[in-house]
């Protein structure tokens, strides 16, 4: 199949937009993997929960009047902020209920991975229980695509998503660099034992990690719901992409998670030019295998030989 320049351009535009969504989800998974040392399989369900919590909010206050070509207004923005807070609280609550107890009982860190597997299943099926398997939408507004380049079209919502993601990532970067909690988080990521010895309260760091990871996951879920719809599978179907992005970027690295997310999004959409869309999810698996083969510590990660 020959691929025209337009198609290539469109794939790159779509890839960056998917990538932004993946980046936001990958930040939390990457931080959890570094600070709490386990791969959290339930993280993807936080995306779904965020999306649906915002849907509940929109159900009460409406999505707001569409402004500036977007399909929504202030209502959805308010609902999203609330959903971010609640999803962060949910992530932290699950930690209190399950993961913290396991950590304290001295369980093997792979037991935590397994528990997260179970937690993820429960979280996903609670969504199915309340909303079933049908797709949901925040608004019924129609949008007119903007033609960025000849043949390359994007929705105003998508541009908004990409811009907002970049702003939030920049803010988070500055916060990690300069705030007390941010510095404590980076120190804990480096070495939990040393951080404790320096008087850092690990519990506070862990709480911050869950609220940041959960909040960004919720935002990511709302973005999936906006482009174009919400269903119980949105998180689960992104799980491999989130892991691939976190590992590609380097576990524990914020720029890593963002660059990793964008690259995975791009790779997915570019490969779709040649491969049937049925294989979409396994594209990120291909990326993951390549990373583990060539550079297991990721782009921005440090080598951790024998870290089991």
């Amino acid at each position, binding site marked *: 199949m020959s691929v025209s320049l337009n198609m290539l351009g469109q794939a790159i535009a779509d890839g960056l937009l998917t990538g932004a969504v993946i980046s936001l989800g990958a930040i939390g998974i990457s931080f959890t*993997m570094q600070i709490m040392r*386990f*791969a959290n*399989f339930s993280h993807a369900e936080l995306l779904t929960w965020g999306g649906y919590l915002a849907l509940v909010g929109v159900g009460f206050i409406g999505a707001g009047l569409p402004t500036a070509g977007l399909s929504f207004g202030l209502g959805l923005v308010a609902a999203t902020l609330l959903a971010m807070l609640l999803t962060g609280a949910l992530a932290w609550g699950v930690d209190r209920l*399950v993961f913290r*107890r*396991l950590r304290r*009982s001295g*369980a*093997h*860190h*792979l*037991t935590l*991975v*397994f*528990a997260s*597997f*179970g*937690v993820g*299943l*429960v979280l996903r*099926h*609670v969504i*199915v*229980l309340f909303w*079933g*398997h049908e797709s949901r939408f925040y608004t019924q507004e129609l949008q007119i695509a903007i033609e960025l380049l000849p043949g390359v079209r994007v929705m105003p919502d998508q541009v908004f998503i990409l811009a907002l993601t970049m702003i939030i990532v920049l803010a988070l970067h500055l916060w990690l660099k300069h705030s007390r909690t941010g510095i404590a988080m980076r120190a804990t990521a480096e070495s939990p034992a040393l951080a404790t010895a320096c008087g850092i309260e690990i519990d506070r760091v862990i709480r911050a990690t869950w609220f940041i990871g959960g909040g960004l996951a919720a935002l990511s879920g709302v973005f999936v719901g906006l482009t174009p719809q919400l269903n119980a599978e949105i998180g689960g179907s992104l*799980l*491999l992409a989130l*892991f691939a992005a976190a*590992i590609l970027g380097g576990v524990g690295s914020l720029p890593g998670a963002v660059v990793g997310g964008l690259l995975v999004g791009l790779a997915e959409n570019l490969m779709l030019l040649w491969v*049937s869309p*049925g*294989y979409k*999810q*396994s594209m*990120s*698996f291909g990326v*993951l*295998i390549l990373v*583990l*083969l060539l550079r*297991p510590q990721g782009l921005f990660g440090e080598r*951790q030989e024998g*870290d*089991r």
Partner: protein
Amino acid sequence: MSGMLSYLVFFASVVLILGIVVLGLNLQWGFTGLFNAGVVGFYAIGGYTFAILTAAPLSGHMGNFGLHWSLGLLAAMFVTALAAWAIGALTIRLRGDYLAITSFGIAVTIQLVTLNWGALTGGPNGLTRLGRPLAGWFDTPAAFNAAYLVMLAAIVALVYWGLERMLRSPWGRVLRAIREDELAAVALGKNARRFRLEAFVIGSALMGLAGALYVGYIGFVSPFDFLPILTFQAWAMLIVGGSGNNRGALLGALVVWGIWTVSGIAVTKLLPPSLAAQGAAVQVILIGAALVAMLLWRPRGIIGEEAVVSRHTTD
């Protein structure tokens, strides 16, 4: 009455097949501490390898070689072992949870392949007219089912005996030594990666065998026999029964599959069809919550691992 009996035969056969899966998982997790999050993927590789090799030839299909079922069973184990070796060799040297992520990825990829590569796998329709083990030797379905059950029981007994032998051999002791204290085992000159990889490959090959036995039993294969929830069920069986104990693994298969089946029947009988999705969700939520609770309050499971003391220390 005969309906009930034939159902019990079917139930027991499924329990035995899943028992093989859980025995394989126990070798990986219970004895070696390897997290396989893609059990269903290896199970499906075995099932599809068997189906592709033994299905009666059909135009438009790349596979459907119409080979004998015994070849199908062997090939199923071999191909599954190969897949396990490939991802194991890549990830066992890395962080423990990377194996979990890649095995999960294998499961997702296999599911997509079975759905989308129609020429090989039959796509959503699957493959039919497989070369079923023992088929043709019996006149009635009831006789076939009974004979198949006996064959499964024999295979499970053989696998159980083989695993027990292996685990009590020096090889098995090294596995446990690595699981408990890798550094100490390495210091004693044991190649931890090689032992881990061997355990992972053998365990996965057993899952492949189970997949082949399953599709050989039902006589057709489709992607809907290999849903992601199976990974979770296999884990539930292992944890409930008692990881690190092969009898616990088999008991867990019986208990969890029993609870799953009964609760499934209850959901379909008690709820109107319009609430079927909700009922199924409740089923998963309850099992998921029970499992997490088990991890928190009774990580040993029903039986649990026996403490082993060297016979040389007691006199």
